[in-house]
């Protein structure tokens, strides 16, 4: 099936689910759809809100695509997102302290460090999976909690604002923030970065030797092994890359939108990347499509919430229903590949 057709089917399916959901909650369908549409696309402000919501969804979604494609079911996007941002905030504080905030490339440096932070966090879970056989589900849940507590600690301790009143970091100076296209809207360079990443990841997965190996390991690690590709090593790198993408998402949210970290910084983007990636069929470009749809839906339902009691929570229902329908219909039955046995372990 070509990409165009798949995208069309995906979109049609999602719209059907949207209509059904509105009906299930007894909302006036025509009026609601209009409100949602207006909220997402009516003017440049609406478009910008959609794009701003799409950005973290797309980056974390891409992060999930990398890991899941290699057969590692990373659900620690949230922790990697947060940890990346903490790393970035530490550099931000350092730059401000050293009076280097205006240094060229400062924001790029922060983004790179964010990606490294996320990668490290994911690497722990990857290592536990590949070398210790620990379910990624379990380790990433633990790591998510630790990351969130670390954030709480960081913003009320080492990274707290100068005034020391509120548990949050200092607002970054404009020079370190990602550039905006229009002073009136929030769309920032991070949105472009996310879209570029989707293209980069497509190229990586489908055009490079390393990407091919990654997909091969995810499809059948045994075949990879008998052809001299170490599945564990590939999966470990995939986890690190996946975490880097989620850490980058955290950095983009930090530098592009909020400019400071507080305890309300985690907005579940790390979790929400999972349904986005799944509905995108673990394909980067389709994931971009799904991220845009849900970004627009978030923006649209925010508008819906202004006029009706219903609001953004509808998006979760739509995501959940769509994922269940998708896996239920396509019968995504492939058993998770087991980690390969450790070679140095002595048999009993």
């Amino acid at each position, binding site marked *: 099936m070509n990409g165009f057709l798949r995208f069309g089917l995906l979109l049609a399916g999602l719209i059907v689910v949207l209509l059904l959901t509105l009906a299930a909650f007894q909302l006036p369908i025509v009026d609601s759809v209009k409100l949602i549409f207006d909220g997402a696309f009516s003017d440049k402000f609406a478009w910008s809100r959609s794009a701003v919501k799409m950005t973290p969804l797309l980056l974390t979604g891409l992060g999930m695509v990398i890991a899941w494609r290699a057969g590692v*079911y990373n659900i620690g996007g949230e922790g990697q997102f947060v940890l990346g941002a903490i790393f970035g905030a530490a550099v931000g504080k350092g730059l401000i302290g050293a009076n280097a905030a205006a240094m060229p490339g400062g924001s790029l440096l922060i983004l790179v460090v964010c990606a490294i932070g996320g990668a490290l966090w994911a690497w722990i879970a990857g290592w536990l999976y590949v070398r210790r056989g620990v*379910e990624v589900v379990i380790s990433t849940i633990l790591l998510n909690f630790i990351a969130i507590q670390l954030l709480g600690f960081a913003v009320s301790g080492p990274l707290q604002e100068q005034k020391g009143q509120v548990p949050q970091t200092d607002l970054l100076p404009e020079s370190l923030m990602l550039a905006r296209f229009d002073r009136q809207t929030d769309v920032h360079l991070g949105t472009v970065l996310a879209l570029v990443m989707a293209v980069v990841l497509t190229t990586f997965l489908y055009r490079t030797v390393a990407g091919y190996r990654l997909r091969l390991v995810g499809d059948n690690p045994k075949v990879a092994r008998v052809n001299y590709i170490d599945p564990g090593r590939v999966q470990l790198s995939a986890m690190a890359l996946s975490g880097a993408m989620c850490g980058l998402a955290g950095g983009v949210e930090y530098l592009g939108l909020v400019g400071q970290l507080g305890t309300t910084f985690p907005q579940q983007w790390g979790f929400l990347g999972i349904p986005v990636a799944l509905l995108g069929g673990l394909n980067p470009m389709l994931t971009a499509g799904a991220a845009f749809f849900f970004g627009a839906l978030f923006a649209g339902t925010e508008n819906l919430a202004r006029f009706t009691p219903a609001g953004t929570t509808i998006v979760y229902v739509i995501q959940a229903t769509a994922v269940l329908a998708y*896996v239920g219909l396509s019968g995504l*039955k492939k058993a998770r590949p087991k980690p390969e046995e450790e070679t140095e372990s002595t048999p009993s």
Partner: protein
Amino acid sequence: MILQYATPVALAATGETIGQKSGVIYIGLEGSMLAGAFFAMLAAQSTGSPWIGLVAGITAGLLLALLFGWFTIRRGIDQVVVGTAINLLALGVTGTIYRTQFGKSGTLLSVAKLPPVFGKIDAVEILLLLSAIGLTWVLQKSSLGLALRATGEYPKAAEAAGFSVARLRFIGVACSGIFAGLAGAYLSLGISGSFAENMTAGRGFVAIAMVTFGRWKPMWVLAAALLIGFAESLQFTLQAAGVQAPYQLLIALPYLVALTVLVVVGRGTVAPAALAEPYVKGD
């Protein structure tokens, strides 16, 4: 105080232990808890009886778990995928109904709370202690427990002994769902006396983590959950006493310990060997 903080997590974790022992890791635990909290509140509010509320909460938690079971056990779809969807579904459905019924700002609802039985201890807390002991017995000494554990370790052996792996796993996941529903109901009816959007705030995931920390033994899991409750209540005690302490690190400690255990011993032999693996009959 500690018991009150610990009870919801402990209840959910105890049920999840049974589920995991049968080989199913119910990622949707958070969703079952949230649904339990919401529908318990809804039922208690419209009938005025917290007991009917409890039953409604348990039912909601159970139904979500059975939905999860249908996808993962009957259709063999990955547990992580379905569990994630279940959580989102619960978050979305409870949030949306709540807003459409009670307004978006959430007029502070208050419903009849569970009455205490002895001193400050209420019926659910007593039930928690009893179930941890009871489930230990079930796992160790009953036929059901033996068969459940066999299913989680090596489903083929359970099949060969004449049991249906699917049925045993449904029992396991139902147990997770029932306890999660009860845990959620207790959150809204036993502790806060109201409901707020996403009020479980990750407690379902805490519970899953505690199963690992308690090494899949109900009494240990209970102890692990009490430790979490202790850490959380200590946070407030310290704050009230004006002590400046990095309490976030304190709260993170149990997770860090659990993680360290995994790093050192790995999966080990305690974790059910067939955890999260779909079983295809005759494969």
